[in-house]
């Protein structure tokens, strides 16, 4: 039930015909799990908190370093040396005291993902490595909850939304391990890609619009170009190959 404060705080988005009070109530009732409080996690969490998502759980094991600050806008100069999860929780709770923010200072593993993501309606990928992304994707597929993938490098980013049982999953494109690397990145890039992921999350929760499922959105900041590529489900996929695909009616 929306309060008078909610009606005022979220007035500009409640005014959107596709959202309205009903959509705002769905956002308020939602619980989202954000894996990572770095560049992507900063923009994703700020906008979902501002939008009134009722419960945001954000998990990251890292400590804030000076070199994070060109892009990880949740964390400021005074936070250097603090844990990202703690910094994120404090900032987001200050931004919106009417929602619940849960910070988790842990490394996401196959062993603890069930506990960390328990009760979440969806999982948002704000990680910086493939192995953890596959842990998140598998958990999402096994538990039939959506997975919102995003990744960045240089001026280039990509976004993909996984709806288990209906679309290709992140593992469907797996060909084998990829060497880990320290990715260069212009600070605005995770801001933009994270905002697209947050938009997908809001659309999913409120049940509006068309999702980037079975699609991969590529963004090229140098040429200022968006490209949408069609992704096919892999029937031999280790994560989702066993699922029977449901067609939309």
């Amino acid at each position, binding site marked *: 039930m929306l309060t008078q404060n909610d009606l005022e705080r979220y007035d500009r988005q409640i005014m959107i015909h596709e959202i309205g009070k009903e959509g705002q109530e769905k956002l308020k009732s939602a619980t989202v799990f954000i894996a990572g409080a770095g560049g992507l*996690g900063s923009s994703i969490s700020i906008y979902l908190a501002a939008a009134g998502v009722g419960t945001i759980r954000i998990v990251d094991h890292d400590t804030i370093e000076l070199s994070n600050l060109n892009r990880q806008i949740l964390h400021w100069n005074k936070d250097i040396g603090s844990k990202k999860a703690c910094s994120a929780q404090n900032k987001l709770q200050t931004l919106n005291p009417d929602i619940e923010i849960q910070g988790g200072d842990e490394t996401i593993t196959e062993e603890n993902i069930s506990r960390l993501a328990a009760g979440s309606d969806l999982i948002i990928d704000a990680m910086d490595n493939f192995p953890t992304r596959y842990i998140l994707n598998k958990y999402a597929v096994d538990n039939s909850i959506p997975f919102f993938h995003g*990744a*960045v*490098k240089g001026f280039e980013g990509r976004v993909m939304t996984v709806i288990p049982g209906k679309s290709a999953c992140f593992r469907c494109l797996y060909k*084998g391990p990829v060497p880990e690397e320290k990715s260069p990145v212009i600070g605005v890039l995770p801001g933009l890609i994270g905002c697209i992921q947050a938009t997908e999350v809001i659309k999913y929760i409120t049940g509006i619009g068309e999702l980037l499922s079975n699609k991969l959105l590529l963004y090229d900041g140098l040429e200022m170009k968006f490209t949408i590529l069609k*992704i*096919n489900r892999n029937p031999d996929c280790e994560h989702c190959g066993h699922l029977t695909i449901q067609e939309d009616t």
Partner: protein
Amino acid sequence: MSIKVHIHKSHRQFTDGLSVVDSNGKTVGECLDNLIKRYPGIKEKLFDKKGNLLNVIEIYVNLESAYPNELIKKVSNGDDIYLTAKLSGG
């Protein structure tokens, strides 16, 4: 027959800066072989020493994923092959 190969930004240093290169062949693999004959420096960015496509490389034909078995996927005149690379940063 002309197939356009769209070169990823990180590989254009090997194609004289070109973002699109005309190639030919009946399959994606043949088109890439043709590309490599003209621009040999790009080979190690696409294939390992055994000739397998690198795991980080993704190929799309006419904006649709060609995975799996990308290299034997048939192409025809006017098709577009897009070479992209997986991203890991967050």
